[in-house]
Every structure is written in C-alpha cells, then in structure tokens.
C-alpha cells in the first residue's frame, strides 16, 4: 500500500485542533461502531474529553456505552481507562425532543404549546425522514456551543442516501422558512393581501384549489395553522442551520467516510467524497470496515485449489484440503475487496484510506470497540 495515502487515525484523534469528527457513509457499513470506537480511542489513548453522538445504535452496543435510556443528554461512560486523562461521554439522539427544544428556544411558552398540539407538527417532528438529519445537526451545534468537550464524534443517520445528511437540513430549513407555504396557503388564509400575492394573482388561487383538492382541506388547514404559529421562528431556524453548516466547513471539523469493501458502499463513498469537496467540507479520509485479510500469503488460489483436489482424490475427508479451500476463498474475497477499494483510490488519489480487518465475531462491548481499531491494516 502506498504509505502516503494511508490514513493515520491516531494522528487525527490526537490533533487538538480537530474538535469535531463526522462519520458518514451508507447504511450497514458499521458507521455507529466506528464512531464509538474512535471516540473510545480518543479518550483512552489520547486523553481527550470526548463525546460521541449516536443516532440509532444497535441495542447491545448502546448498552455497552451505558445508553440504556434514550434521554437526549450526554452520559458519562464509566468503565473506560482514564489514565491518559481523557473522558468519554455518549448520547443517543431523540429527534422529537430535540425539535421540541428548538421550538421552546425560539418562542414563548404559549406559542410553543400551540405548536406542540398541532397534528402536522407532531407528524413532522417524529416521522419526517429529514427531521432526523436536521436534528442531528442541531444537536451537534448545541454540543459544540456548550464547549464542554474537546472532541465531538458524530454518527450520521441511516438515511436513504448518505447525502441526505447534508441536504435534508437545508430542505427542512427552506420549508420552515415558509416562503413556499406562505405562497401556497395564502388563498386559504383570512385577510391575505400580501404584496407577493398580487404578483402571482390568479394562478396562485388555482394552485391553492388544486392542493386543497389533492391533499384535502383538513391537512392544508393544519399546515396553515402550523405555519402561522411558527411564523416568528423562521429566521431562527435558517440561522441555526446555516451556523451548523459553517461549523462543518471549518478546519476544526474532519469528515470520515465509512464504507464496507462492497461496490455499492464504495460507490456511495466516492460520491460523498466528491460532494464534500464541492461543499468545501474537510474530508480526512476513508475507513473501509470489515476487510478480509489473508494470513498465509505464499499460496495462490490456483495452487491451493489444485492441491486440495489432489488431496481429496486419495482422502475425500482431508482436513488440509478443506483448509486450502477456505484459504482459496479467502484470497479471492480479499483480492476482490482490494480491487473494489482501489476504485476509490484511483478516483480520489488525495484521500487517505484506512482498512479495518473483519473480526470473526461482532462488536458489542467496550473490549470489542478497543479491538476493532487496534488491528488497523
């Protein structure tokens, strides 16, 4: 492997100028585990006061971090080695509660109560697929503003595409900004007469009629009430979203793209690397998880299979033949994974890559988290 392009995670974790590490990538690549393992290592090895923000951790991993309750506040993880002077905190995102907090921060109690009671708000704050992304970023902004940790490691939501995490907050902020809705709902509201309406005139009321017909009056009325209740907060939403966006572009932030050595995940990683460059967000490297490694390097696939065949002609139950077949499969898998990873290297020659070997068993405790980065290739 070209050492220039090898990602040195310890150097990254030790760098005190780095205050935020964002782990992103497609679903099922081990993002949450990686985020937790990085945070643990930062605390134990590099003495950093670290907080890891997880979105939807597997139950047992959550338990190992002491996250039995989803209570939206960082909890100190006690069972770690603090001899290097570090500490580890972990939290699990509660998107609805985070959304509620934002509403409370930007309106008076009566107005907030009105918003909380609105059916459209209830549905949106707990089910809209972009809410999770938006609230993860909101939470990141809050944690950074508290300035209590010198490193924040963020896991990103398991969205349809890794890019949702950048796009959804913007989309939601745009929606909450309400320009579209104010245009759309104006004909249904009493006392309209805004200047913008006079510009669009007749076609607007037609849009209103269509939307009423297609979506039903009840829904539009609820959206309308929601929007009026939220009116005073629009600026606040946009401003917060923009502030977090700027943090993501700052040199104190490092993005790590996580992938498995499979075509889909690597393709997504490539796409994400390009997108981060476009957004001027600092990409520190690619972590390829669960890479198969060969221990017996001197035996090619062909020689192993030929030998296995020779052995089974005399002894059909030859254990050595079975071992050689397992080895041949492993070599083929490892070679395929390297070919797939090399696609990323060729298209992104400047992005350092780290490979994490596959472990025979899953990671679900602190010891597993320690092991999973200690064997970096």
């Amino acid at each position, binding site marked *: 492997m070209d050492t220039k392009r090898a990602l040195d995670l310890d150097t990254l974790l030790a760098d005190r100028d780095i205050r935020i590490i964002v782990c992103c990538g497609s*679903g*099922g690549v081990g993002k949450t585990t990686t985020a937790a393992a990085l945070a643990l290592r930062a605390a134990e090895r590099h003495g950093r006061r670290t907080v890891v923000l997880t979105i939807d951790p597997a139950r047992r991993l959550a338990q190992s971090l002491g996250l039995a309750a989803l209570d939206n506040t960082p909890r100190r993880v006690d069972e770690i080695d603090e001899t290097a002077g570090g500490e580890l905190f972990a939290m699990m995102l509660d998107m609805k509660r985070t959304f509620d907090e934002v509403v409370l921060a930007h309106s008076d109690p009566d107005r907030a109560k009105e918003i909380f009671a609105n059916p459209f708000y209830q549905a949106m704050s707990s089910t809209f697929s972009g809410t999770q992304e938006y609230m993860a970023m909101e939470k990141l902004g809050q944690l950074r503003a508290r300035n209590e940790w010198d490193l924040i490691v963020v896991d990103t939501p398991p969205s*349809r595409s890794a890019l949702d995490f950048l796009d959804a907050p913007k989309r939601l902020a745009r929606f909450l900004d309400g320009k*579209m809705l104010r245009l759309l709902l104006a004909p249904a509201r009493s006392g309209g007469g805004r200047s913008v309406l006079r510009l669009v005139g007749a076609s607007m009321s037609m849009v209103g009629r269509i939307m009423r017909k297609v979506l039903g009056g009840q829904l539009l009325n609820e959206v309308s009430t929601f929007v009026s209740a939220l009116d005073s907060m629009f600026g606040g939403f946009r401003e917060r979203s923009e502030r977090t966006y700027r943090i993501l572009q700052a040199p104190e932030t490092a993005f790590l793209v996580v992938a498995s050595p499979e075509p889909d995940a690597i393709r997504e990683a490539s796409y994400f690397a390009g997108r981060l460059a476009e957004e001027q967000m600092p990409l520190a490297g690619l972590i390829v998880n669960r890479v198969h490694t060969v221990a017996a390097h001197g035996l090619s696939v062909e020689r192993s299979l030929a030998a296995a065949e020779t052995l089974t002609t005399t002894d059909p139950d030859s254990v050595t033949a079975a071992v050689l077949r397992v080895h041949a499969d492993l070599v083929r898998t490892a070679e*395929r994974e390297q070919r797939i990873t090399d696609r990323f290297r060729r298209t992104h020659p400047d992005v350092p890559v780290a490979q994490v070997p596959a472990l025979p068993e899953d990671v679900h405790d602190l010891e597993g988290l320690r092991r999973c980065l200690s064997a970096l290739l």
Partner: protein
Amino acid sequence: MVTGKGGTGKTTVAAALALALATGGKRTLLVEVENRQGIAQLFDVPPLPYAERRIAVPPRGGEVRALAVDAEEAFLEYLELFYRLGRAGRMLKRIGAVDFVTTIAPGLRDVLLTGKVKEAVTRVEQGHRVYHAVVLDAPPTGRVGRFLNVTAEVAGLAKVGPIKHQSEGVAAVLRSPTTAVHVVTLLEEMPVQETADAVAELRELQIPVGSIIVNQTCESVLSGARVTQTQLRRDLEALGLPTDRRTVAGLAAEARDHQARIRVQRRLRSELEQLGPPVLELPFLADGIDLSGLYVLMDALLEQGVHTA
C-alpha cells in the same frame, strides 16, 4: 417485498427473486423506490427511467422488467390519472408544492411509492394481470415498518379526504395474501437482531411475512474438524508447497477464524429458525455479484421452492 438491514444484499436478492418468479414464461416487475439506481448497476445497464423496461430474460422464457419509482414523477402521474391535472403539475413543481408532497409532508411520499406498486400489481390488460409478480426492493428493516404502514403514517394528517382514501386502498393490498415481505439477512449479530425486530413489527402490523433469506452463507467444510499445524505441514510438503512457518501458521489461523465464524453462524441460524417463517439460504459468491452470480442465486431460490414461499 424484499427488505433487510443495509449491506445484507437485499437489492441482489430482490433481483434474483424477480428472475426466479419469471422463469418458465412469466413476466415480473422489479421495482426500486429509493433513487439509488441499484438495479441498473446490478444488471449493468444505464440508469433506469420512470418507465417499465425489460432488463433480463430468465431460463425457459419469460421476462423481468424493471422500474425506478421516483416520488415526484409518481405524484405528477397521480395528478394526471385521477384529476387530469398534468399541466398544473408543472406549476406545482415550480412553486415547491411537489417538493412539499414528496419530501416534507410526512408519509405522503410513501403513500405515493407504495401506491405505484399497488397500481402495477393490480394492472390488467385484455383480461389478464400484466405481472405475475411485482418484486419491490423495499427500504431497509429499520424503516420498512413505517414505509409499509401507510395508513397509520398519514392517519394523523388526514382523517378524511383523498389521502386517506388512497392510503387505505394501498393498505388493503399490503395486508392481503397477495403480499409477502421477505427479510434478507446475513449470519451476523446485528442483521439477525434486526430481522427478528422486523418480523415482530410486520406481524404486529398484520403484513404477511414471506421467508427469511439468509444471504452469503458459506459451506461449513471445516466444522468440527481438528486442524493441526503438523498435519498441514506434512500434506503441504508432500505436495511440494511452501512449508515455512508463516504459511503453515497462517493457514491454521485462517482455519480458526473460519471455524469461529461457522460457530457464530450456527447459533444465529438456529435463532432465525425459531422466528417462524421459512428460512432460505443463498451461497456466498467469493467473486462478488455480477449477472451470472444473479442466475446462481436464482437457481438456489428455485431449488428451495421460492414459488410457494
């Protein structure tokens, strides 16, 4: 419907299933809904449009068509079909209303996507169903319950009116025996846990679970075997292969890892068998999945009687 934790290969399994169900002169439709163009990549064809295109031909006649459902296109199609509002659609799009319906309003997007699937399932031409089966590459296990539970999702939003009507039509099809949700998993802890959660959730929602499809299983050629370095060295030497310490110890270590995996897999397989639905297995293909690999998986599904699953 094919779901599964991310990374378990549900798109691949959905494609193999669409092929298997089309063999012997039938027509199936393979649908994706998450704008990933996973089907096109799998079959090595250009990105799929919002149109049903032939994508593969199974053995003994038949055809697999594919469709990438785009929520926005589905919405415009819906407007045209039910309200004859094709042109107004463009205006709605300009103003951001389409964006509202397809991405922001909770649940509406899923009603549109599952609605399109229902339309394909029930479509009739000249007195015959157009498709013998429609295979949906559904969202992953973490989101599939919400995706399929369309009525509940929009219930808070629409107590009466066209959305409620539409979602109830879709829900009726999803809860009927016409539907089977297959859950794809690997023999690893987290996917197995998610499979158990998904099966429980789907049962709760009264959506029929088809089978559990275990992907990437490997043969347990070494299960229970005693591997010793002495024996390995002796056999390698007899064959004129390298017998240095690294090679011999390396092979032994690889065998140990393999056996450890097999043990975990055996335990997880029995956990899966206790869930209730039939468990089907697909082999691990060391060279990865290409078009010929899909046919291997199709054969494996047919051998295990996927028609009845």
